[in-house]
């Protein structure tokens, strides 16, 4: 066998090679084969195949035969297609563009949704990673779900359940500072996590070992970027930082930045050594009556959470007193579900900052649905227009038939041409996506790669969508064709009336969907606008917030306030424990008139006497704090809501028990302030109590600066003052209104996506209407001519053409309005402060569509209506 050249090579060569070259090439290669066979038959065979492959060149290839009848037909179809393209450019452009826009929107949305669903699923053990959610049920509060768990829960889970491979605990408490020589870094992207986290999540460790032992209270793992900023290099394992949350601290390892589709982006991870903590902290971290730690769990392979739950009861009984047991029930939430499935879970305590805000499935499916709406509209459009076109070509079809074409061939032509159009639109849509990609990333607040569009998981959707559009849009006109009688074909307009009903209902559906999208985007836009411009009860413009990150700043706060005030740009400065729109927890104090009463849970702010003026919160009755620490210390201010809930008839002078975690003190109300919003407008305004700064429960955490002008100079000034009194900590300054914007950022990007999708849908629908009216007017040219001769006015004619479409628009309004009303009411009910759905929204949407649709066709209709009837009658 080895004696002869490999058969497969020969066959391949003979298959592709031009006959005129074959003998020479084959002969030479075979000769070479025999020559090299002397050396080694195996090599010779390989060499032979290699030579065959190398001969597989363009010049050697057989040229496809062109005298094949099918090929002829196809080339004829192609020719006809492009001729018609030239003849009816408008129609084709409208058709292709409409479809391409729909596809582009769909692709954007697919990418968005895909990315949303893949968040946090890139870890090698993602499927086995869970986060523990505590389910706390109390009589007063009902049921709440918290990410923060009892501090020792993680350790106890690991030691008590054999199905749990590893656990980790993490927590976070505000900003921190890292110091190395002269360099200081302050940021919020850090976390305190036990070693287990490195066994649960995959961190890309460049050097060092996060699991090794270290001296002192904590070690730290840095990202390369942070290491570079601190040391100017990345090989810093074993180096010691001069300052941090835990004093001098050793760098245990350096890692790469976390992938961008991770909920968290930790830049610094502190690893605690609890045994080195002060006794007080050790007690705190092992107390079950706390809620301070996020717990991560890695289950062993093959273990399901349910298996753990079976022993949960005895576990809880072992560690918890009966009285707090119900407060610390827990369950496991899969890591991959956190991003979309945790809207009902509150932090319930400190939590590391999220790099990607949590979203929910409802929104993702809403967006997906919209993508399909838009592509559906585009597809209907396309189907409509192409079926209309097919009808116009009866003459061509009949000529083909008379010349012997079968029905199958006619239908085949339709499929072929449609495929052409679909492919052109596909290419165009890819181009649109590519061009608008940066813009889209901005809107969606994501940074994914363009290649995602062609990822294995998404390409199927492309093909599926196009196949459906292709088949359906070719199929409908094909139905008419196949029913043709040969004799009828020669007659013109053999089908002028056919399919009208179908086309109109398709247009109707299009309009229902567009109307729906337009109403939705108007309402969402209005609501967001309402929320953002609503009076918060204080003026959040021109406010700068400076975090207090160190004891020295806290002690000299009066000096800092006075120092900042010296600048002419600054109107007022205040220090307080919290600021409205706070991103950490909102501390609570319980108010009651008598100690044994059910208390009113009020948000507690510790403030100085400049606070009201700085925020421009109105004092309704009574007076403000005096600024004299002795006088103020037992006085409080409360808001109107607190007055209402405490049922105080005469609030001024009333004595109220203020219960904090530490103790209960009886204090006197000296003033009532206007309600102001301290959370997003999703929440109702709750009761608020202001105490003076020198209470011992809440320490001061912020300065607020109201500036008159020149924020840049003001920031510089604040930094200088901060540096004088607290040289160790860099100033962390934020604009308050930017913090407020955070509440609505997700909504903004959502409403933007919805707005764009609905604009595109209107444009596509308008395209469709344009095409259809074009068709109708062309059809009715003669009729219009005759009517004009008989004395019809231009208005009569315009009315004649658009009457039907007006009725369609009205019908679609009637159908879409109630559904939209119902869905939007549902959405609005999430907001504590919301607009009402008034009829003018629906009217406005109707007008928008009407104007956009008819302005595109009006010039066309007008031209026909105005034309000289003689030309019209001679038409055809």
């Amino acid at each position, binding site marked *: 066998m080895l004696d002869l050249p490999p058969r497969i090579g020969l066959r391949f060569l003979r298959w592709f090679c031009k006959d005129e070259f074959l003998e*020479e090439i084959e002969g030479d290669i075979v000769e070479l084969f025999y020559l090299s066979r002397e050396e080694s038959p195996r090599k010779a065979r390989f060499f032979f195949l290699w030579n065959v492959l*190398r001969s597989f060149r363009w010049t050697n290839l057989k040229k496809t035969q062109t005298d094949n009848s099918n090929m002829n037909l196809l080339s004829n179809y192609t020719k006809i297609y492009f001729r018609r393209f030239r003849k009816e450019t408008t129609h084709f452009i409208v058709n292709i563009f409409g479809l391409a826009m729909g596809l582009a929107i769909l692709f954007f949305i697919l990418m968005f949704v895909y990315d949303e669903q893949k968040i946090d699923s890139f870890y090698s053990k993602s499927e086995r990673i869970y986060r523990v959610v505590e389910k706390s049920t109390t009589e007063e509060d009902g049921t709440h779900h918290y990410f923060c768990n009892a501090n020792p829960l993680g350790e106890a889970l690991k030691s008590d359940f054999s199905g749990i491979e590893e656990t980790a605990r993490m927590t976070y408490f505000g900003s921190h500072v890292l110091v190395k020589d002269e360099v200081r870094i302050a940021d919020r992207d850090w976390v305190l996590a036990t070693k287990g986290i490195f066994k649960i999540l995959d961190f890309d460790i460049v050097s060092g070992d996060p699991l090794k032992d270290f001296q002192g209270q904590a070690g730290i793992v840095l990202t390369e970027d942070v290491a570079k900023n601190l040391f100017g290099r990345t090989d810093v394992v074993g180096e010691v930082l001069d300052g941090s949350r835990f004093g001098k601290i050793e760098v245990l390892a350096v890692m790469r930045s976390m992938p961008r589709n991770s909920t968290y982006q930790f830049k610094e991870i502190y690893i605690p050594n609890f045994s080195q903590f002060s006794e007080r902290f050790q007690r705190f971290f092992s107390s079950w009556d706390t809620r301070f730690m996020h717990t991560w769990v890695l289950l062993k392979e093959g273990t399901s959470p349910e298996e753990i739950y079976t022993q949960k009861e005895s576990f809880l009984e072992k560690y918890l007193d009966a009285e707090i047991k119900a407060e610390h029930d827990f369950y496991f939430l899969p890591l991959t579900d956190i991003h979309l499935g945790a809207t009902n879970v509150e932090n319930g305590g400190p939590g590391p900052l999220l790099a990607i805000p949590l979203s929910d499935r409802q929104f993702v499916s809403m967006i997906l649905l919209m993508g399909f709406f838009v592509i559906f509209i585009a597809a209907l459009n396309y189907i409509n227009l192409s079926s209309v076109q097919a009808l116009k070509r009866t003459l061509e079809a009949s000529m083909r038939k008379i010349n012997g074409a079968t029905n199958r061939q006619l239908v085949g032509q339709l499929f072929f041409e449609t495929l052409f159009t679909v492919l052109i639109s596909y290419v165009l849509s890819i181009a649109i996506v590519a061009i608008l990609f940066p813009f889209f990333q901005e809107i969606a607040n994501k940074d994914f790669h363009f290649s995602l569009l062609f990822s294995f998981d998404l390409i199927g959707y492309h093909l599926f969508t196009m196949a459906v559009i292709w088949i359906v849009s070719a199929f409908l006109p094909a139905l008419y064709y196949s029913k043709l009688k040969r004799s009828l074909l020669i007659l013109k307009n053999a089908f002028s009336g056919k399919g009208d009903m179908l086309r109109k209902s398709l247009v109707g559906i299009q309009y229902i969907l567009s109307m729906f999208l337009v109403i939705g985007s108007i309402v969402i836009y209005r609501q967001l606008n309402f929320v953002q411009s609503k009076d918060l009860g204080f003026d959040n413009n021109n406010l700068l917030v400076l975090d207090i990150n160190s004891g020295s700043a806290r002690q000299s706060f009066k000096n800092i306030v006075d120092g900042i005030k010296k600048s002419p740009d600054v109107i007022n400065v205040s220090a307080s424990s919290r600021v409205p729109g706070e991103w950490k927890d909102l501390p609570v104090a319980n108010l009651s008139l008598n100690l044994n009463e059910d208390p009113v849970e009020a948000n507690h702010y510790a403030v100085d006497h400049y606070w009201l003026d700085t925020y421009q919160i109105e004092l309704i009755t009574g007076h403000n704090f005096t600024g004299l620490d002795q006088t103020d210390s037992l006085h409080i201010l409360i808001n109107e809501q607190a007055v209402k809930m405490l049922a105080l008839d005469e609030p001024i002078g009333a004595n109220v028990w203020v219960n904090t975690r530490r103790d209960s003190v009886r204090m006197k109300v000296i003033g009532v302030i206007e309600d102001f919003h301290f959370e997003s407008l999703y929440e109702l305004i709750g009761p608020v109590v202001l105490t003076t700064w020198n209470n011992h429960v809440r320490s001061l955490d912020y300065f607020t600066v109201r500036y008159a002008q020149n924020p840049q100079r003001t920031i510089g000034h604040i930094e200088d003052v901060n540096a004088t009194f607290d040289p160790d900590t860099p100033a962390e300054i934020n604009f308050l209104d930017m913090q407020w914007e955070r509440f609505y950022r997700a909504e903004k990007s959502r409403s933007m996506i919805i707005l764009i999708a609905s604009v595109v849908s209107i444009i596509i629908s308008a395209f469709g209407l344009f095409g259809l009216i074009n068709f109708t007017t062309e059809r009715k040219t003669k009729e219009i001519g005759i009517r004009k001769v008989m004395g019809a006015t231009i208005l009569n004619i315009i009315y004649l053409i658009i009457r039907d479409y007006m009725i369609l628009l009205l019908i679609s309004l009637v159908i879409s309005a109630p559904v939209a009303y119902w869905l939007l009411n549902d959405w609005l009910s999430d907001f504590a402060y919301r607009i009402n759905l008034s009829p003018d929204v629906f009217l406005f949407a109707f007008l928008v569509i009407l104007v956009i649709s008819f302005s595109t066709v009006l010039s066309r209709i007008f031209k026909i209506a105005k034309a000289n009837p003689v030309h019209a009658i001679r038409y055809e």
Partner: protein
Amino acid sequence: MNDQSLGEFEELVLLMVAALHDEAYGVAILQHLEEKLDRKINISAIHVALKRLENKGFVHSRFGGITKDRGGRRKKFYVMTAAGKKVLDRQYAIRTSIYKDIPNISFS
């Protein structure tokens, strides 16, 4: 492309066709070129070069008789045409004239 141009590899093949006069066919050209150049050449490269030369009219070809060592396939022999000779002469003349212009500097 200028029909009279000659790539480096084409020139080598053409030279070999001329040198092997009447005995020049694919495998022979390949073997002699490999020997002279001391490197591996693929047969398909030779075929391509030969076809180009033929299209430019520098060689012409004929089929030889049936031989046993090719399993009955005929050899295709190439000979240089007058045009081929002319282009080689020109190439040679250009090169020598430029070569002569090299100043007499020691390169060792």
